[in-house]
């Protein structure tokens, strides 16, 4: 019996069978997957898996959750936590099963869409850290929820209620207005007409005094201190419009002559409140995901104190402390390596897809993952002072700054209201001179026929419909102004790792004996090093039975050795195995990392390991170029790697920059923007987060980190770049609809107001036309050209061939 990994889950098991399984469950799943033809699952799954930042055995620090706990009168405690990794009904079921599995937990309710878990428990039987550990076992990581969030929830509920009331009022006033406009006030039933006016006034007053109060507050705030007209917020014309209309109507109601306009005011308030609410909800979702960033850092660190190692909360680390970072752990703070050497996965900070070797004296940053051997490091900066901390705070401040999008439509409808009031005043005065009897009728017609709702709804409605369509295609747009900016984008910056390429290392070229690769793969079988994973998956895909290796030893930073079929096999850095630099040139030129294999003291094979370009990258780039957008590569990878990918995909040499630090990327994007370019940035690493925020449109791709989801304006949940193409299509379609809507409602209003002012429209006709104009705009938004996939003219470009396929011909 030998110890081998389970073919499905990878857990170590003893078995002679091949493939070996740890349990019948795994075996069933394995065969189901294979019989369904999904064997690729294992290649993908066994590729380099991003190490979880949460340690399963971590002692959760009870202080971390202290702030969010509330004690109820019956002695139980209550808290809300963020839980990462819930996606489906099964997750909900599992998490809500907690009371039956953990003693002392009374209730567990999960809000799936927000990843929010409400817990109630008996504090004498169980503690939050226990529950967090239980959740972690299943792969759900729990984070504390901040107090501010609860307050935000209450505010949001308040405004939802306001919207409800505002619409109720608006609809009821509207009913009475229709009766009035259709002739109730000119009929014999004067008593009814008066009653309807007074009732409308009472209802509208609720909207004006209570529901709309936030507009006046903000308008006032923008007026004090007065800094000039251009600093006035859009709330100012809205406020003036609402009050001018309301006071005029009140005077008309009280005095018994003149026209009332309560319906338009209340609909305006309700519509504006709804738009604001949608906007606020978008911002809230953005900030919520910001809180999950905590998952990037472990909650505890192993501090070395004299001879003993103690687990301490990361927050207590300070410069000068020495911490131990075991293999697989995430570096908790910035520091200098004082003992040991290892390979660190630094994609989080630099975007480099290959792990880098560190040795004594190397600088490491918080958030990087130690992949091979334990190291000791002396902390130089911890928490917010660390490099990761700085990137985080930058992103958070940027998120707050840019969230409230100025709604052009709000602004337009605000001034529109004023313009209509002015026009009606002029009409009334002019007609008073021509024919006093008709003055009133023509003024009413004008007030009724003008339709601020169509104007106000034109933009938000079209954008909302477009965003909904995009979401169904896996494109999530956070701020609706992104759709507007997409059109002007003239530079598209790609972060190479994981966007143009698959982001997983693969064996791209083999020079020498193929059998040697299989033997090397056997040696590497147990290693978590990404290069090792590449070898193993290459050996698996070659379809030959796996070899077994004995006496496997790892030489940190250099490679591994072991005995396979009685022969001594070494795999590792060519320099370590005594390979001449000159032989490596072709690999380096292709942007691959060379790996050498030596068997019984003789170098028998050289491998090139590299990242493979996504199939659709070339066609997406062509679409971009056709739109007049210049693609640029701004990568943290080695300059040769970036240059090789750039050359394959036909980038201009000047547009490909490798070896960029996060700070350099940010500087470059700011530089482009200063030159007047509108920049879209597509990235997936945390290293891109600051740049994503700085770009006019930041697009994060699935598989990236949470931080990116906060920093980005858009995120694509389907892998590959095709969603990017859809995004352009969606924004084109949306903008076209917005323009059409604005055009329709402006032309409608200009024509009808002119006609009404000239006296060609009766109030009844006006009352019929007004809702029709709104309906036209709604209809136009709903039937906007569905963002058809701009079916890429998929000509077979020579450079559509993945790097690996091209390089393989070198054998």
């Amino acid at each position, binding site marked *: 019996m030998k110890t081998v990994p389970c073919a499905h889950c990878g857990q170590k098991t003893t078995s002679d069978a091949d493939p070996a399984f740890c349990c019948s469950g795994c075996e069933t799943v394995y065969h189901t997957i294979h019989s369904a033809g999904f064997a690729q699952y294992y290649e993908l799954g066994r590729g380099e898996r991003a190490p979880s930042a949460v340690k399963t055995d971590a002692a959760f620090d009870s202080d971390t959750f202290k702030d969010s706990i509330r004690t109820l009168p019956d002695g139980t405690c209550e808290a809300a936590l963020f839980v990462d990794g819930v996606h489906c009904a099964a997750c*909900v079921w599992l998490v809500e099963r907690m009371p039956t599995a953990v003693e002392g937990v009374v209730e567990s309710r999960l809000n799936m*869409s927000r990843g929010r878990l409400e817990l109630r428990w008996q504090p004498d039987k169980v503690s939050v850290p226990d529950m967090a550990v239980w959740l972690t076992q299943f792969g759900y990581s729990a984070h504390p929820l901040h107090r501010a969030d609860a307050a935000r929830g209450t505010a949001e*509920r308040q405004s939802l209620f306001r919207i*409800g009331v505002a619409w109720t009022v608006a609809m009821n006033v509207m009913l009475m207005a229709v009766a009035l406009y259709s002739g109730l006030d000119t009929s014999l*039933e004067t008593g009814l007409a008066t009653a309807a006016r007074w009732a409308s006034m009472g209802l509208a007053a609720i909207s004006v005094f209570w529901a709309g109060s936030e507009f006046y507050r903000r308008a006032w705030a923008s007026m004090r201190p007065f800094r000039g007209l251009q600093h006035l917020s859009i709330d100012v014309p809205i406020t003036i419009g609402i009050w001018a209309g309301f006071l005029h109507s009140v005077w008309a109601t009280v005095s018994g002559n003149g026209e009332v306009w309560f319906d338009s005011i209340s609909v305006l308030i309700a519509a504006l409140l709804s738009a604001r609410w949608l906007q606020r909800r978008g911002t809230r979702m953005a900030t919520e995901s910001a809180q999950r960033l905590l998952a990037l850092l472990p909650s505890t660190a192993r501090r070395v104190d004299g001879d003993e190692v103690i687990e301490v909360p990361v927050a207590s680390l300070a410069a000068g402390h020495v911490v131990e970072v075991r293999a697989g752990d995430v570096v908790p703070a910035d520091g200098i390596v004082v003992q040991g050497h290892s390979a660190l996965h630094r994609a989080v900070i630099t975007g480099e897809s290959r792990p880098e070797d560190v040795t004594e004296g190397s600088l490491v940053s918080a958030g990087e993952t130690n992949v091979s051997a334990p190291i000791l490091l002396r902390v130089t900066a911890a928490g917010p002072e660390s490099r990761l901390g700085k990137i985080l705070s930058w992103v958070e401040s940027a998120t707050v700054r840019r969230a409230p999008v100025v709604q052009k439509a709000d602004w337009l409808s605000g001034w529109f209201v004023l313009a209509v009031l002015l026009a009606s005043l002029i009409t009334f005065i002019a007609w008073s001179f021509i024919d006093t009897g008709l003055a009133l009728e023509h003024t009413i017609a004008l007030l009724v026929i003008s339709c601020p709702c169509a104007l106000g709804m034109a933009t938000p409605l079209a954008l909302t419909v477009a965003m909904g369509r995009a979401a169904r295609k896996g494109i999530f747009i956070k701020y609706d102004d992104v759709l507007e900016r997409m059109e002007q984008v003239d530079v598209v910056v790609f972060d190479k790792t994981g966007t143009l390429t698959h982001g997983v290392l693969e064996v791209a070229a083999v020079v020498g004996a193929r059998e040697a690769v299989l033997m090397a793969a056997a040696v590497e079988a147990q290693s978590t090093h990404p290069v090792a994973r590449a070898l193993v998956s290459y050996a698996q895909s070659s379809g030959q039975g796996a070899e077994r290796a004995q006496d496997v030893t790892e030489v940190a930073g250099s490679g591994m050795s072991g005995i396979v079929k009685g022969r001594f096999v070494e795999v590792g850095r060519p320099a370590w195995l005594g390979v001449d630099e000159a032989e490596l040139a072709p690999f380096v030129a292709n942007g691959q990392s060379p790996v050498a294999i030596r068997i019984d003291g003789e170098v028998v094979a050289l491998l090139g390991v590299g990242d493979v370009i996504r199939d659709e990258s070339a066609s997406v780039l062509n679409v971009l170029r056709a739109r007049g957008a210049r693609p640029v590569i701004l990568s943290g990878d080695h300059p040769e790697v970036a240059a090789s990918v750039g050359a394959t995909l036909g980038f201009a040499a000047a547009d490909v920059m490798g070896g960029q630090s996060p700070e350099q990327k940010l500087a470059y994007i700011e530089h482009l923007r200063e030159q007047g370019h509108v920049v879209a940035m597509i990235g997936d690493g945390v290293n891109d987060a600051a740049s994503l925020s700085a770009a006019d449109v930041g697009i994060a791709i699935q598989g990236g980190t949470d931080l990116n989801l906060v920093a980005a304006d858009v995120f694509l949940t389907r892998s590959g770049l095709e969603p990017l193409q859809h995004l352009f299509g969606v924004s084109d379609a949306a903008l076209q609809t917005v323009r059409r809507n604005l055009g329709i409602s402006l032309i409608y209003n200009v024509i009808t107001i002119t006609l009404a002012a000239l006296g060609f429209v009766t109030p009844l006709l006006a009352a019929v036309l007004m809702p029709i104009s709104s309906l036209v705009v709604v209809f136009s938004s709903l039937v906007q050209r569905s963002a058809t996939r701009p079916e890429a003219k998929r000509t077979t470009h020579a450079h559509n061939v993945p790097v690996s396929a091209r390089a393989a011909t070198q054998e």
Partner: protein
Amino acid sequence: MEVLYFLVPLALLLAVGSVLAFRWATRHDQFDDLDSPAVRILNDD
């Protein structure tokens, strides 16, 4: 037409009723989570 003096206030009363119902719903988090209940129904118990 006099019946309107009775019917309109009645309609308004109904509206007040629905506003109160809506207030109850917002205060009881009925609109907080629109996705989980849909999957929770799949759970047996």
